[in-house]
């Protein structure tokens, strides 16, 4: 009998029986990662501007959502366009509950989390059962149709969602933006800062969960499905079940990302969370960072969000240097054009995404150094 999920857990526990070199050591890469996290935590104190905090918060949220999408696309080989929909479900869960509640309290956020998880898990199970058995391209089309349906529902069901105008709401408890708790390092500690740190710690916790998941025995099976599903089946794995684990876990994390996004903006509308453009952005972020790298999601999210937020401003400032040139003014307005060029350059120079290409380059160097060592022997 080949091991299954239960058995794999036992094996994970018994890891030490096969390798005794599990002493954790802090590598330079770990130090770099910790440094990034500390920097994120210090940003509100170093740059007490809303714009910088806004960009950083969005980078963290999208890192989480992109990493959860990478679990599906990069680790399991499933292309689901419904991933953005789960992000929207999370955002609308918290928005609707807080908007329709007369006196929102902290537990309403917990209720929103539970509802979004139940809806996401239920819906991802339905999607999996009905469409995973079809071929990859049909699965992608089905999920695209479903995501578009969610967008239309958000626009049309005005009595609930506020239609295209969306809904604004206020956060309860310590998260309320009007609450202030004093000043630290000339920075006012208020509800927004609390939400910022909620985003930071939630992203850290959930991202660590994703990393743990991909390195678990189940994660190994997912990678084997991505590399060659027939092999995984021939080893005795019911791949369909593992694909469901991946979709359910990835969708749940995306919906939690949606909750954080809505809490940060205190506003949602169908275009900001359900639109196909959001899904395209998530896909671009995965491609830029590198599929199947998980950490690449940080690079992808940072690249896209920083570019979207600061490239127009940068171009405008550059154009102001030559105010008399109409052509320069017109060219400076077309920031998407330069973003497109940047994206093409990234794809050209990093065909496997930034992190994917760096890792491939590093592996190649290892192979070369080993072959040199063998020749010397």
């Amino acid at each position, binding site marked *: 009998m*080949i091991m299954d999920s239960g*058995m794999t857990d036992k*094996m994970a526990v018994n890891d030490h029986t096969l*390798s005794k070199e599990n002493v954790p050591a802090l590598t330079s890469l770990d130090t770099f990662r910790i440094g990034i996290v500390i920097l994120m935590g210090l940003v509100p104190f170093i740059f007490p501007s809303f714009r910088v905090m806004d960009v950083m918060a969005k980078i963290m949220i999208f890192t989480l959502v992109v990493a959860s999408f990478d679990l599906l696309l990069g680790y399991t080989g499933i292309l689901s366009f419904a991933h953005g929909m789960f992000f929207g479900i999370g955002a609308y869960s918290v928005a609707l509950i807080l908007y329709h509640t007369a006196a929102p309290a902290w537990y309403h956020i917990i209720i929103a989390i539970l509802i979004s998880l139940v809806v996401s898990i239920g819906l991802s199970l339905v999607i999996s059962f009905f469409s995973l058995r079809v071929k990859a391209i049909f699965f992608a089309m089905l999920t695209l149709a479903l995501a578009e349906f969610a967008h239309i529902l958000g626009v049309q069901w005005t009595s609930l969602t506020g239609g295209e105008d969306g809904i604004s709401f206020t956060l309860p408890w310590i998260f309320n933006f009007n609450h202030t708790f004093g000043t630290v390092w000339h920075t006012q500690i208020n509800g927004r800062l609390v939400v910022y740190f909620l985003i930071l710690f939630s992203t850290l916790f959930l991202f660590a969960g994703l990393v743990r998941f991909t390195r678990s025995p189940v994660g*190994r099976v997912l990678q084997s499905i991505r590399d060659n599903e027939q092999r995984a*089946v021939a*080893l005795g794995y019911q791949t369909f079940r593992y694909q469901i684990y991946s979709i359910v876990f990835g969708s749940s994390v995306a919906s939690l990302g949606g909750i954080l996004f809505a809490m940060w903006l205190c506003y949602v509308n169908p275009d900001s969370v359900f639109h196909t453009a959001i899904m395209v952005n998530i896909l671009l972020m995965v491609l830029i960072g590198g599929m199947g790298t998980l950490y690449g999601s940080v690079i992808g999210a940072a690249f896209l969000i920083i570019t979207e937020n600061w490239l127009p401003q940068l171009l405008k400032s550059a154009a102001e240097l030559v105010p008399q040139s109409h052509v320069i003014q017109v060219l400076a307005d077309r920031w998407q054009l330069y973003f497109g060029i940047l994206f093409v350059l990234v794809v050209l120079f990093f065909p496997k995404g930034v992190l994917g290409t760096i890792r491939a380059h590093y592996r190649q160097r290892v192979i070369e150094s080993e072959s040199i060592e063998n020749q010397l022997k």
Partner: protein
Amino acid sequence: MNDSMLTLDDVHTHIGQHHILQGVSLSVNPGGATILLGRNGAGKSTTLKTIMGLYPASKGSIRFKGEKIHREKTHKIARMGMGFVPEDHAVLFNLTVEENFRLSMVEETETTRQNLEDVLELFPALRKFWKTKAGLLSGGQKQMLAIARVFVCDHSLLLIDEPSKGLAPIVVDQLGEALLRIKDKTKVILVEQNFNLACQVGTDCFILDDGQVVFHGMIDELAKDKPMMKAYLGI
């Protein structure tokens, strides 16, 4: 017939519109290694994949340890004790050697632990590269890992598809030694183009031609039958 470990009775397999297996019937007894021989395109690999359930048999029946398996899902057939090593270095490149073993391992028992020790003794290079990504191994090492990985499980039947393909002669010799030790513990059905290796490892053999069995006998008898060798193997 009842003692057979595996029986194929008039098995037909279609891949798309192509009728590949056209009534394969064979019976394999426990112990030793049975070799499937034949020219390219004769249906050897398709036979293994049909047994494993990777291609559905369109007609006929397959029994493994007395149970009908031709309608079973591949993962269930694997769990019944059948291991499969495909011809394309079936290792997972992005996982380490250790992770490749773990992926295919049965629940860690005294037997599997012993199997692992045996296999690492048999292929010492794999112990050396224990934490190395499988994609970084040489072609021979990948093939060793592919076989060793399946051998760790307590399978009662191993289907191995052209393990010597693309390997250097010295590696093929090592592979032959490994297969000789493996067949002492586990029944092996081996698809092999290298006739010397087949003779070294195999006891009985089947020759397939145009999706049908055209010869069954002991491999040393076949080696003496020059017309048969010329007609079906081109040797």
